[in-house]
């Protein structure tokens, strides 16, 4: 019997798992996807927001600011990507300035202390490439950028190191409420590597952090009091030579019609523009399209007109988990012991650590005993990244493990050693995209053209699974279909 079962391993589930792992609790953590962070978490702007935007008095406002502060503490132990580069909300006229003034006041109420209304010259001094017509801006130094999946992975690794039992590829298909516990049935769809997971789990409490599917999971215990609507946002990601065009996160002044498009460097210093917002019917609809992205480009040009569209590396889309209630839903449901953490749309990535604290408060109020572990490991080792190491450190590392000297991704300078390392870390991964998220192999300008065959080989060597079972991400996304001479022969 588990004390707690967390459903969902996005940023919210990861933050909750990490916080709960400090205590003497037996925790099972279920995720439908092949890795942590593979829903909304993996495809968003990667901004650690300042907390001025969400309306004062909402949960969003309260938890966003607190989350921002917590990340800055957590990073010291967990070493995830975080760079507090600051943000501008730019304006072009008095109308915009009035909106910025309102944002400023809202921010002050939310406890954001470092806000400033600045003029166009101030903006240009920090951001010389932006539209010269900018007349004013809200400047927020305490805005940061992260790499959202690497962030979730860091939290998840710490949680697992401290005893949380993560089960990937495990979709929850039924939940029965018994007197003092839940019976949870999962459907396990392994990819290359198979684990011996029991099909049924008993847990005293359930935390529903299933993101886009939080309403589906809630329905399994008969709850129908909220709906999650997928709201798609599309992005364009540019090569690193475009990254230096901006130094901070640049938002446009929101209008009643549009929130505007942001232009930002990513943590790894690509240039990112997006997202738009489009309500879609299907939660899995992540297709990008030419007309929406043309609008993204047009709108972004109002901020920065000099980016080079020929330097686009890829386009992608993410679905926000918008609820019909407008604010975050973090509460114990009508079903005793079933906690909903749902509708976590922007600024959910920022708020996640504070959401975890908030959930612990709910559990504490229910009388759950929180006794700290004596052997809790607060520290998490960062990954080696050959691209970022100096000569001496690199020499020492290669001497110890020669594979760090063999580059398999030339665009991002990722070595075989880093891939070996990713496969040995706490989250048990066996797909291409999981390796990509951890090492950046395949993230560069050639988009895995060069490293695909090499990574296949490494996965084959390390996991001892047939190459045709190795997937890009989900089941059915295998890279190759089999051996030449044989694959199509056998079919006949």
């Amino acid at each position, binding site marked *: 019997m588990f004390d707690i079962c967390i459903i969902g391993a996005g940023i919210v589930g990861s933050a909750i798992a990490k916080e709960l792992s400090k205590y003497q609790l037996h925790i099972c953590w279920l995720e439908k996807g092949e890795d942590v962070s593979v829903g909304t978490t993996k495809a968003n702007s990667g901004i650690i927001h300042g907390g001025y935007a969400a309306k004062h008095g909402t949960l969003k406002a309260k938890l966003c600011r607190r989350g921002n502060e917590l990340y800055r503490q957590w990073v010291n132990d967990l070493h995830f990507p975080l760079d507090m580069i600051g943000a501008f909300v730019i304006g072009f006229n008095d109308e915009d300035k009035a909106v910025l003034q309102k944002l400023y006041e809202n921010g002050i109420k939310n406890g954001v202390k470092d806000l400033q209304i600045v003029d166009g010259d101030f903006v240009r001094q920090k951001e010389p490439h932006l539209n010269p017509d900018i007349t004013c801006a809200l400047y927020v130094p305490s805005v940061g950028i992260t790499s959202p999946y690497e962030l979730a992975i860091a939290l998840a690794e710490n949680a697992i190191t401290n005893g949380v039992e993560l089960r990937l590829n495990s979709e929850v298909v039924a939940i029965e409420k018994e007197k003092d516990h839940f019976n949870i049935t999962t459907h396990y769809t392994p990819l290359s590597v198979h684990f011996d997971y029991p099909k049924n789990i008993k847990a005293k409490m359930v935390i529903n952090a299933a993101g886009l599917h939080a309403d589906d999971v809630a329905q399994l215990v008969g709850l129908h009091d909220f709906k999650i609507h997928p709201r798609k946002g599309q992005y364009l990601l540019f090569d690193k030579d475009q990254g230096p065009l901006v130094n901070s996160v640049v938002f446009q002044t929101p209008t009643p019609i549009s929130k505007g498009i942001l232009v930002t460097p990513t943590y790894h210093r690509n240039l990112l523009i997006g997202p738009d917002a489009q309500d879609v019917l299907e939660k899995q609809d992540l*297709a990008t399209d030419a007309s929406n992205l043309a609008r993204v480009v047009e709108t972004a040009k109002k901020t920065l007109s000099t980016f080079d569209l020929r330097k686009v590396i890829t386009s992608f889309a993410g679905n926000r988990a918008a609820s019909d209630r407008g604010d975050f839903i973090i509460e114990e449901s009508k079903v005793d012991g079933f906690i909903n953490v749902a509708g976590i749309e922007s600024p959910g990535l920022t708020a996640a650590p504070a959401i975890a604290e908030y959930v612990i408060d709910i559990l504490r109020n229910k009388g759950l005993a929180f006794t700290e572990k004596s052997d809790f490991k607060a520290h998490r080792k960062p990954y080696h990244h050959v691209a970022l190491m100096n000569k001496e450190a690199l020499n020492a590392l290669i001497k110890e493990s020669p594979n760090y*000297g*063999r580059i398999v991704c030339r665009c991002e300078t990722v070595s075989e050693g880093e891939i070996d390392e990713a496969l040995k870390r706490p989250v048990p991964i066996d797909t291409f995209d999981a390796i990509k998220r951890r090492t950046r192999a395949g993230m560069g*300008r050639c988009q*895995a053209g060069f490293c695909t065959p090499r990574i296949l080989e490494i996965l084959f060597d390390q996991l001892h699974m047939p190459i045709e079972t190795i997937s*890009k991400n*989900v089941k059915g996304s295998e890279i190759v*279909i089999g051996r030449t001479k044989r694959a199509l022969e056998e079919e006949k």
Partner: protein
Amino acid sequence: MKSSYECVVIGGGPAGMAAAVAAKRNGIKDILIIEREKVLGGILNQCIHNGFGVHHFKEELTGPEYSSRMIDLVRAENIESLLDCMVLSVDTKDRTVHAISPEHGYLQIKAKAIVLAMGCRERTRGAIRIYGSRPSGVFTAGTAQRLMNIDGYMPGKKVVILGSGDIGLVMARRLTLEGAKVEMVVELMPYSNGLPRNTVECLYDYNIPLLLSHTVVQIHGKERVTGVTIAKVDENGRPIKETERFVDCDTLLLSVGLIPENEISRGAGVQLDPMTQGAIVGESYQTNVEGIFSCGNVLHVHDVVDFVTEESSVCGEGVARYIAKNLQNEITHKLTPGEGIRSIVPQTINLNNLNEKVKLYMRVKEISEKRAVVASIGDQIIAKKRDIKFLPAQTVTLELKKKDLLTAAGNEVVISVQ
């Protein structure tokens, strides 16, 4: 492992090997080829089809055969090579190559001369902005070629190929021979972008349709590709909405162009030509950075490897001349693309570095018939070559004689199609 060489060649493909062999034969004793793979040969090793070497070796070879001939020459000349080693950067201040390898760790190797011969990479889905979902089953043609020919795996069984570049055409045939069904090759331009020989031997001989003035506008499928939407394009290359149609397939191969891999060159301050996306070089393949040379596909994308060998040999001679302090820096003549010419390599000439002549490698902008490429200085024509047909996919060569350059008044040579 020595820490300094007279010449370091970055890249052990056909260009690097030919440059090294030529430098050695012209008196340079101390040469190192650095190669990231565990074998020399570069991309030739995965090109298992024939048709290589007709000009240079006077016989038809496969890619691996051509590369092994070159490797034999490297061995015969006792040229040192460092395999499984990736060059990270070139520091021009002290002309040092920074590299890492599993065996040697972080290396800093000094060189009097450096040859950049890193080859090229393929343009991707993102770069040509094909939208839609992001399932597995989308490969660049070269990656699929490597998977099949080196690793022995099938990328898919029902294939659409976008782009009629030579690798795409060759892969259409290769996939067909392995039992896959190649539904069609879709080409944005109104003409094939591959060599005519490949269009005939790889598509027509296998009844694979070539759809000109078409493109792929959307990719479908969640896990694996389930199909693509193709459309006809207007004269500006824009898809015409009404002509969109769905094509059922599980694999999309992209053969939509090659980009010289010049990240190291850029880092070293080498000036690039926007047309070739490679370095701007002189007649001896010297770049604007003292002691740094460039040849092969990193300089400009070639259609036949024989030209790579030829130009890289000239580069190797230039390196030898430079190390012997016989290479002059100044530019005496500039080559300018005129009417109908897209690019010219080399871009500059110093007459004093020439023995008798210089060979130019050019690309034309569009298809033309019964025309001539003409080199002129002012009103004076100094070279002319007729051909039945000029194709953008095919390199046009032209030789300029030193004596003609000497006697003509002026220092700008304009090449045009007339």
